[in-house]
């Protein structure tokens, strides 16, 4: 099962995402932003980091990378895409997902072990979780506050497209405690928390994040 991870200039969690795919049992494939070649991967992860330094709006430049042209076209045909943190920001900038991520409410970068609930288990990235499952996964970002118009929020809620929600405490002022969403079809998922940093008890707060990566393998097998 070939799963790609894109390295943009300034990507940071690309190596961790590759490791997560490997530990889940997949075949990780490194993809480079400057090429439009998806190397026959069956799904792709846009990893966390600060692509192009996030000096403009986060993700605003990466959206125009050659690899994104291929990903946008494929995603519109059901190709599974997971955006983590900066990857989520790139997906909203690409209009594959609605809404925007803005500065955290208290204006600080925040790194913490965040309790979450899994709200949607029908996406290819979350089918291994149980509905309402409580997980702990790190968040680490400065611009993680999810904002969307009232209309869009209503639509996301009505269509069950909120994938993850912050539990206990909202760390950044996100509307409706939203930590992750999907597109209407469910194949494109963006999350601010970092499941790739919760794959081993040794290095993470839990192993709860690994299910994102086993889920995608499972859903690809089932196709």
């Amino acid at each position, binding site marked *: 099962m070939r799963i790609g991870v894109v390295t943009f200039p*300034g990507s940071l969690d690309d*190596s961790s995402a590759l490791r997560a795919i490997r530990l889940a049992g997949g075949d990780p494939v490194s993809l480079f932003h400057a090429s439009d070649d998806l190397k026959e991967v069956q799904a792709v992860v846009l990893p966390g980091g*600060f692509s192009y330094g996030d000096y403009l709006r986060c993700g605003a430049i990466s959206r125009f990378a050659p690899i994104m042209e291929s990903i946008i076209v494929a995603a519109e045909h059901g190709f599974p895409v997971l955006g983590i943190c900066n990857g989520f920001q790139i997906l909203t900038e690409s209009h594959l997902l609605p809404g925007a991520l803005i500065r955290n409410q*208290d204006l600080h970068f925040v790194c913490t072990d965040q309790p979450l609930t899994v709200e949607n288990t029908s996406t290819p990235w979350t089918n291994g979780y149980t509905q309402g499952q409580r997980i702990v996964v790190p968040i680490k970002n400065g611009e993680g506050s999810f904002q969307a118009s009232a209309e869009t929020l209503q639509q996301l809620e009505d269509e069950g497209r909120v994938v993850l929600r912050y539990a206990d405490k909202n760390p950044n002022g996100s509307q409706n405690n939203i930590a992750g969403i999907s597109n209407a079809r469910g194949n494109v998922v963006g999350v601010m928390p970092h499941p790739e940093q919760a794959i081993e008890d040794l290095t993470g707060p839990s192993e709860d994040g690994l299910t994102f990566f086993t889920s995608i393998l499972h859903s690809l097998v089932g196709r």
Partner: protein
Amino acid sequence: MSLDTVAVAQSTPDNSQPWKELGLKQDEYENIRQILGRRPTSSELAMYSVMWSEHCSYKSSKIHLKQFGEKAVKSDALLVGIGENAGVVDIGQGYAVTFKIESHNHPSFVEPYQGAATGVGGIVRDILTMGARPIAVMDPLRFGPADAPDTRRVLPGIVAGVGGYGNCLGLPNIGGEVVFDETYAGNPLVNALCVGVMKHSDIKLATAHGTGNLVVLFGAKTGGDGIGGVSVLASETFASGKAAKRPAVQVGDPFAEKVLIECSLEIFAEDLVVGIQDLGGAGLSCATSELASGGSGGMDIQLEKVPLRDPSLSPEEILMSESQERMCAIIEPSKLARFMQICKKWDVTATVIGQVTEGDRLHITWNGELIVDVPPRTVAHDGPVYNRPMQRPAYLDSLTPAKVPMPQTPAEIKEAILKLIASPNIADKSWVTDQYDRYVRGDTVVSQPEDSGMIRIDEQTHLGVAISTDANARWSYLDPYEGVKLALLESCRNIAVTGAKPLAITNCLNFGSPEDPGVMWQFAETVRGLADIALEMGLPVTGGNVSFYNQTGSVAILPTPVIGVLGVIQDVRTRTKMGLPKAGLDIYQLGTTDNNFSGSEWAHIHGQMGDTAPKADVDHETRLVKLLLEGQGLFAAAHDLSDGGFAAGITEMVLKNNVGATIEFVGDIAAELFAQTPGRVVVAVEPKDSDALKALAAKHGIAIARLGQSGGDVLTINGAHIPLVELRKAHTETFHKLFG
């Protein structure tokens, strides 16, 4: 202004020159004239002024630092020692690790965010320059009183700068310190540590060999920021009424550094460079003169080829600029094409600016005219050396014993503990550390607030390294010789409690003005102490940094030697953390407590300093470290006791996993709780392992006492009941109240 060429300098020997404004002393200027046999050109003067600054030349510290050579430990682990960009040690399995601390104190006071950010950037490039991939950072920080208005300006900016740069670079921040003392008001300390890993064969050195090889500048373009940062900023005390020094602070671009790292590592992997040097303090002056003198000495530079952000910069400014995110490499001509290809892949600007030549002169031209003609060693290594006057400071004769409250009843004990753990130096630092990414790269095994930071090096073999930085400046104030020894021993203990074996030392020595004989004495005693303790512990000093002039007017900072110790752990899965993991564990203290409160936090919060630092007991500490390493299989939790004594240590142990404890002391309860006697560790073991632990303690001759048991949601000490909820509130709300 017309170009001041070598020819012009020769024909106008009497032109007056701004050597004083550039931070040089009269005799230093005369010395330069003697070396060159003429007056220096303005470009040469610029180079000498930055390279002969205290910061670059170590002119006041050199004669003391020699001891690290004279008392050097014979160590097979040391692959590269003092003198290169950073020391390198062998950790086995073909891996080499490099680590170093540097200060960025003055810039961080002037411009907290950029000062701290570029402090991180600078040390990371030092590590990268050795050929290593940087894998983690740490930042020991010191500030004036927590509630002082200026601390509210400086601290949030520095923390945001450390985070803003390090997070964007993708390096986990795994530890450090946040300490408050009034002597740091106006002189905050920003020390930044970086650790990197490589294979033995990948070690790179700053050397320009091979006539005809090319000098290539790559990375960011050169701008007008940071001009004279090392001379006018880092090598003088602050005085009121002087013009703002903000233009002397560099501006950082972490994204440029991130791509520079990836680009450089790809270049190293294909073995495309002969030598390499980063551009940090003193910029191009430093890089060219050090590379040249690291080789045979000959180098030609065509300065007009340097890509500029600001085309109006003069040659002198280009030579002095400390613009960040730049590297200088020596490359064989045949490898240039591939080198350029990799730079292009990462969108990194790279420009050939010169060649290695025969002979032993560094020649720099500007549009064909010779503006620098110097023996590079005289710039890089043969700076002035001062044997500054030293005198044991008078304050040492008027010290008085610490008179502190001695709580006895349960109510007094509870009140005292809550007071101590809420004090800024002991309070929970999450407000700071949650602004740093500790997870990135996915190999962080242990991070703050644990005793050390630990990083996995090899996923297959589970090899890892641990690092801790420590200083107790008040002990150094009371006795600088013992103070630095105690800092090193604490650092070793912090490494060993997490399960790693201490292997090597780095240091950052922060002091007041070397022109003050009392400060110079503190410095000399510190260096003597560090050289002695390194030898006694059998650990090599791999490098270090000296920061003088941390002084406002006649008020110097507490002597603050920050010691970093690197340890190795063969299997990171066996590491021990400080938090009590569950109820029903037996809690023991290793080592004994005396009633000396000098230099303790308990004394500090009562406005007391005390009179006598503890004596470093190397024999005891060596045995304790052995016990800790042998006992790793037994410990469910282990925690070093240092700042705040047992009261602070047990608070961290119970709050970590929200598992309480019941403790009963038989001795003097005030001392047991608040004295900071060195050489003590608290461990928790399964009751079935108690006998094995006692046997181990007996074997190593370490005093052991059972203090109680874990469990419940209350911390109970000699009848004082403190619900964990109350304990947590006191411990965690201080920073939020202070800094929002």
